[in-house]
């Protein structure tokens, strides 16, 4: 049509204004982050425009940096243990909250979620004081305990959402068909919860892996990756290498989050069918 009615024209204007807004918004969010990969390939010690040529030497430098490898190893260890433990704790709590009418469920949930709202620096200092008062040494184990506080609320949120779409009759049906509680868990609950469990593992792993403040206070002599990066910032000549490391972490984190979301959605339809 040559002369569309004015009302649809107005709608058209509104739409294009909205898409401009969306574009600006996304640019605001992600342009600063894009600085990392761009300068990590820049052939200059100085982080400044104009770019002075393509190089992969910063990445090569990372590959040779044993202190970084050690810190990465620590981060992976803490992240794995934290994600396993917090998912296990979250699973038990989520099942209790959604399957049984227990007294004090509300306050208990609030207390579990509280660490989300306490500034990490406060949490870090508090844990540091507690550990020294009790006489426990600073260590990776101490860091895991600190990270559990931060990660369990995330695990719980993901898993409760998953349990709520779960037909309680399915577990009763399994008992009715001769399976005890343990076998019912393995044959019914676990497979149906698997996408939620996977999402919780990924989410808590990333949370622990990225966490800096609590780790900083509790690490003692063992650095994790964020602490290592923080240390490197004192040396200007190492900055491009930090950018390269940041770019790698960014890529892996995004990939994990996308994977977690994908896995979480994967089984939602199936559970709904059972309800």
């Amino acid at each position, binding site marked *: 049509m040559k002369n569309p009615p004015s009302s649809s024209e107005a709608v058209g204007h509104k739409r294009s204004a909205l898409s401009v807004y969306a574009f600006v918004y996304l640019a605001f969010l992600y342009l600063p982050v894009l600085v990392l990969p761009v300068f990590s390939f820049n052939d200059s010690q100085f982080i400044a425009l104009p770019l002075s040529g393509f190089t992969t030497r910063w990445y090569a430098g990372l590959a040779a940096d044993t202190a970084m490898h050690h810190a990465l190893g620590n981060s992976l260890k803490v992240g794995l243990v934290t994600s396993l433990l917090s998912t296990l704790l979250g699973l038990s709590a989520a099942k209790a909250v959604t399957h049984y009418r227990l007294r004090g469920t509300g306050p208990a949930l609030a207390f579990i979620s509280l660490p989300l709202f306490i500034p990490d620096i406060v949490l870090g200092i508090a844990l540091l004081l507690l550990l020294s008062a009790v006489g426990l040494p600073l260590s990776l184990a101490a860091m895991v305990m600190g990270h559990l506080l931060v990660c369990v609320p995330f695990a719980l949120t993901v898993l409760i959402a998953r349990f709520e779409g779960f037909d309680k009759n399915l577990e009763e049906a399994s008992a009715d*068909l001769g399976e005890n509680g343990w076998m019912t868990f393995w044959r019914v609950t676990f497979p149906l919860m698997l996408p939620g469990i996977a999402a919780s593992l990924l989410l808590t792993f990333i949370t622990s892996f990225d966490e800096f403040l609590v780790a900083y206070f509790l690490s003692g002599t063992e650095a994790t990756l964020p602490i290592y990066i923080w240390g490197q910032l004192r040396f200007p000549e190492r900055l491009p290498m930090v950018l390269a490391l940041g770019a790698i972490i960014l890529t892996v984190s995004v990939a994990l989050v996308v994977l977690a979301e994908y896995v979480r959605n994967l089984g939602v339809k199936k559970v709904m*069918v*059972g309800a």
Partner: protein
Amino acid sequence: MSFLVIANVSKSFGGAPAVDNVSLQVPRGEFFALLGPSGCGKTTLLRMIAGFEAPDSGTIAIDGEVMNAVPPHQRPTNMVFQSYAIFPHLNVFDNIAYGLRKLRLPKDALRAKVEAMLATVRLEGLGGRAADQLSGGQRQRVALARALVREPKILLLDEPLGALDKRLREAMQLELRAIQRKVGITFVLVTHDQEEALSLSDRVAVMEGGKILQIASPRTLYERPVSRAVADFIGEINFFHATVREIAAETATVNAGMLGVFALPAANLAPGIKPGDHILLAIRPEHVRFSAQGVASEILTSTFLGERSHFHVRIPGRSEPVAVSGQMPPAGTAHLVFPPENLIGLPSNQ
């Protein structure tokens, strides 16, 4: 000795009792129904037989063994859930085979057993079908097959046909009855649908407020209800106030005021009624007849239902119309006749 014996079982969830001192016995191979409105305690009773709820008091015994301390997974019962509870991550075959794991059958034997059960519930060839690709009727059959394949001593059915549309429900009723006859397993069915209970069961327990009002065959429930509540719940019925004059060996004489005095079979009076008692005379709409003589009446409404019609008829001295079911009377003033053999006497205090 009966196969399923429930003795003085009570259960409450905090407030009023959900099941209140219920006793009943079901012989082996019977199709037994628990019938009542929602909240009458029938599902709680069923779940106690399955072991999902524990009675506060009383005992439940199956085949001579007291079940109170036996957990659900060790009871010789299997249940068809109202929601069917088909395992969504398993296909039809694996759903049906779920409860056979402990038998440790060789693969061929397991397959043969499941295939036979698929045939029984007429789902041949659908073993590979995913749970989310089944229709409502198919899900119902899978739930039934999954429970029956374990050859339980008692099969428990919780409103198994409630989620199906009317035509499918009627077809499944016939099939359920046929399957029960074929496998010979004792069935205990919970339903709020009186038609379903009457058409399927050998005997029905009518429940209300956690208590059993009457246990009888469908025909007896319909023709000889022992209380107003049962008569009201099963089909439509008219009530008239009356007084018992005398009760002899064979017949009882009852004065129903405007309607006249009736000599009805003494067996038509509910147990416990004595001469001089105020009672309710009850009669089904299809037993009331139009005639040239009798109680003068005026037809208020008539509804044509095919082979018969349903009428609301006013008679003098009574504000509530009488429900009548039958053929349209010939033109002219219709009179109503109440055949004494179809009148039932019920206590008026219930």
